[in-house]
């Protein structure tokens, strides 16, 4: 399986990259990690006329502190999730999630922003972006704009990115104070895309009994990662215990939009989403109790 012909550019500056995308009016693909794009090129399922390789734009490779949160540049590799001290300190859930993302060899090339821009609904990073209410910076030759995760993910492999835009930065704001997070996934094998996955966040009231905040985002269950606010609302104000978790689980079952494929049916995905809701909430609660 060999790629079809394309013109290849590896600009040294962001301006150059953006100019190229502009010139080629929607017929260009950004090559960052390439772990998703290259298989598609090899199989000729993607046939762009131009490929813009941004790997030489060194200034895009960063993980920095920002207002209690973290900003991640377009070239930061997925491996950074496991090696960056900042992430371990401020957002350990990202570090935890890295365990599910493919394998070390993929993570050494694949980028965090690339995974978010690729928007595979069964991938972990888009779900994390949604759960953590990340802000995406979209750059074009005309300037930059910021899009929240809620509106960034639109459909299967489709985001708010225009054809002439590059996702140059993702900002993960500081998670809610004293919140604990859990990410769980069911997949056929270790490292595979999720059949069903969940990112759950929980914060308790000052009395440490009642749920003050909750975030429930599911992946592998629709055209985008899905945040089920109804399920979150079923938790808020409730005692942090099985009854509430069960209510959230049932609500989640209805709030997602799964489909059938050879690995799982719609019913399976709904049922497992409910199961994972409870398991993830239990895990998050346990983390809270430990602290």
């Amino acid at each position, binding site marked *: 399986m060999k790629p079809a012909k*394309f013109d290849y550019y590896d600009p040294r500056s962001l301006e150059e990259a953006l100019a190229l995308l502009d010139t080629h009016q929607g017929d260009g693909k950004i090559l960052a990690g390439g772990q998703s794009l290259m298989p598609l090129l090899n199989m000729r399922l993607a046939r762009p006329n131009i490929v813009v390789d941004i790997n030489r734009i060194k200034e895009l490779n960063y993980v920095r502190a920002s207002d209690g949160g973290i900003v991640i540049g377009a070239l930061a590799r997925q491996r950074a999730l496991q090696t960056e001290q900042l992430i371990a300190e401020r957002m350990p859930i990202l570090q935890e999630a890295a365990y599910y993302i493919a394998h070390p060899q993929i993570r050494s090339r694949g980028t965090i922003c690339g995974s978010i821009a690729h928007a595979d609904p069964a991938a972990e990073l888009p779900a994390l972006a949604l759960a953590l209410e990340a802000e995406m910076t979209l750059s074009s030759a005309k300037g930059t704009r910021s899009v929240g995760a809620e509106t960034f993910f639109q459909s299967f492999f489709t985001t708010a990115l225009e054809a002439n835009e590059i996702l140059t930065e993702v900002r993960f704001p500081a998670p809610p104070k004293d919140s604990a997070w859990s990410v769980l996934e069911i997949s056929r094998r270790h490292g595979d895309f999720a059949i069903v996955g969940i990112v759950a966040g929980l914060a308790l009231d000052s009395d440490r009994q009642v749920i003050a905040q909750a975030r429930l985002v599911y992946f592998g269950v629709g055209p985008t990662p899905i945040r089920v606010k109804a399920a979150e609302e079923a938790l808020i104000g409730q005692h942090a215990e099985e009854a509430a978790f069960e209510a959230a689980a049932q609500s989640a079952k209805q709030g997602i939009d799964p489909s059938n494929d050879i690995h799982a049916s719609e019913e399976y995905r709904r049922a497992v989403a409910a199961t994972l809701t409870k398991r993830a909430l239990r895990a998050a609660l346990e983390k809270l109790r430990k602290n």
Partner: protein
Amino acid sequence: MATSRTVKVHVNGVVYEQTVEARKTLVDFLREDVGLTGTNVGCEHGVCGACTILMNGEAVRSCIMLAAQADGAELMTVEGLAKAGGELHPIQEAVREKHGLQCGFCTPGFLMTTYELLNKHPDADEEEIKEWLSGHLCRCTGYQDILESVKLAASRLRNP
């Protein structure tokens, strides 16, 4: 010409320079243009790991990289492990001793991943070793002898 690219790489310490089609994958470049056929092609979709080489010290799947992306990089392939006189690297020696190979087709990929793993995590425990090896498929060995080989290599590299 944007459809082709001159690629200059160091492979196992030797410089190679060649103009190739931009769409040429790194593994094809290594096998055909550089002439090092030790790195094998197993799937061309980044799953089996047979094509794994080191780029600037990191294990990467060369079937899902373009040769152009390696321009200016330091690459290491399986041919760079043994000494020039044929003396096997301790990792290769350990794999041989523990029968961590049968047909050998997946072996170069495993060796390169192991090289980076033991370089960066010399004290890797079984769980970490398995995580790193999970990116490789083998159909012959069932993996256990490969795991034992890596453990032996790790202990030998820690106490040379």
